[in-house]
């Protein structure tokens, strides 16, 4: 099987250059590629267009890149938890395109599945529809939305094998599988890297063909945004 293993985050992101378009998996701080984000911060690459459901918080996730002014444009569905983000947005330093969450996911799917555009009713009649083609099917209006075209997709999985096959854990799956399919170059960081053959082919969520580089990450913080619990009785 083709070996996709690279030494670590620095090597994995080696050719992400100023001005690249980069997808980052995760929902909130759940399932985000922590190691690659750190490496992007260290590398200091700038003027990135980031496609991700959220923009992290002030001191974690994509927030770390915002803090260093590495992001030129953010494409997301919800960016609420980040004061520095708000400051940059209001001062005009940061460009933001907000799109419906399902549209975000489906534009990734479209890229991964070789569909140049998809139809969704989300946003019909709202400012999201401005400038977009509206088409009626069976009495209902839909917007035509285009597949994303991202230079890189960076995803986080639970387990991966040397052939690039990925398995996600619980709701840290979220956008990771669809973004993994959507990058021209897809980079996967995993909590545990295993030899090809150690994963059950039936349980693979992302087939290795979609993954170009894989490495075992380290030091995962997995920060919890809203720690909600109930008393033990």
């Amino acid at each position, binding site marked *: 099987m083709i070996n996709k293993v690279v030494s670590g985050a620095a090597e994995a992101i080696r050719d992400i250059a100023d001005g690249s378009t980069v997808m980052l998996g995760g*929902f909130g701080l759940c399932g985000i590629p922590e190691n690659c984000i750190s490496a992007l911060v260290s590398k200091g690459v700038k003027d990135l267009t980031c496609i991700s459901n959220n923009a992290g918080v002030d001191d974690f996730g994509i927030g770390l890149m915002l803090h260093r002014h590495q992001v030129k444009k953010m494409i997301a569905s919800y960016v609420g938890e980040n004061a520095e983000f708000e400051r940059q947005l209001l001062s005009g330093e940061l460009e933001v395109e907000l799109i419906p969450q*399902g549209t975000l996911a489906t534009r990734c799917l479209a890229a991964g599945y070789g569909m140049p555009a998809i139809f969704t009713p*989300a946003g019909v009649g709202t400012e999201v529809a401005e400038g977009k083609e509206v088409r009626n099917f069976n009495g209902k209006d839909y917007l035509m939305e285009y597949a994303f075209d991202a230079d890189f997709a960076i995803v986080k999985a639970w387990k991966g094998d040397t052939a690039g096959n990925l398995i996600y854990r619980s709701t840290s799956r979220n956008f990771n599988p669809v973004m993994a399919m959507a990058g021209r170059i897809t980079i996967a960081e995993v909590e545990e890297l295993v030899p090809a053959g150690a994963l059950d082919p039936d349980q693979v969520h992302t087939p290795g063909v979609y993954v170009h580089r894989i490495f075992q990450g380290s030091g995962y913080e997995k920060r919890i945004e809203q720690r909600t619990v109930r008393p033990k009785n």
Partner: protein
Amino acid sequence: MLDKNGIAKRIAKEIRNGYYVNLGIGIPTLVANYIPDHIEVVLQSENGLLGMGPFPFEGEEDADLINAGKQTITTLPGSSIFDSAMSFGMIRSQKIDLTILGAMEVSENGDIANWKIPGKMVKGMGGAMDLVASAKNIIVAMQHVNKAGESKLLPACTLPLTGVRCIKKIVTEMAVLDVLPEGGFKLIERAPGVSVELIHQSTLGKLYADENVPEMQLD
């Protein structure tokens, strides 16, 4: 006049056995607390979970298991996990029977505004636009009037829209209302102690009320 829990309690009565339900953030989340034990429902969280369970016991939080509000949660026997494309796929294909969400404004033709206030920091629509555009059955949980006492049930929304002609039922601190297909709010129930007159005064959009409007039964 109902409090938030009262609104949630009233909405819970709309939930039928066997429903798959998506609950938005805020009052809708409270609805889960009032679903009777004999009603079997499955809660969807649009970040990729069917079968959302209660909050974890203290010390058992799992950073990989959150809901769309980023809260730590649990799964239940029979839960399933999927990616965001499938999650919104099942929303668009109307496999989710009921969506409950909040609103800042609803218009008499069923438009809803709940994501953006011009001049204020815009956080984003998240999944709300997908949900309102796709759901076959949406209940809005909202305040009838703002803090200044001005109606949020309007002839037309003044805020940027989240979706058009999609809302069919509204539960507020004062009333249960349907949005009529031909336009206009139809008063279905009054909150305990709230008069039809007060509801009329609090509703800027067209309001239709029969002579006798029953009071809500909350138990």
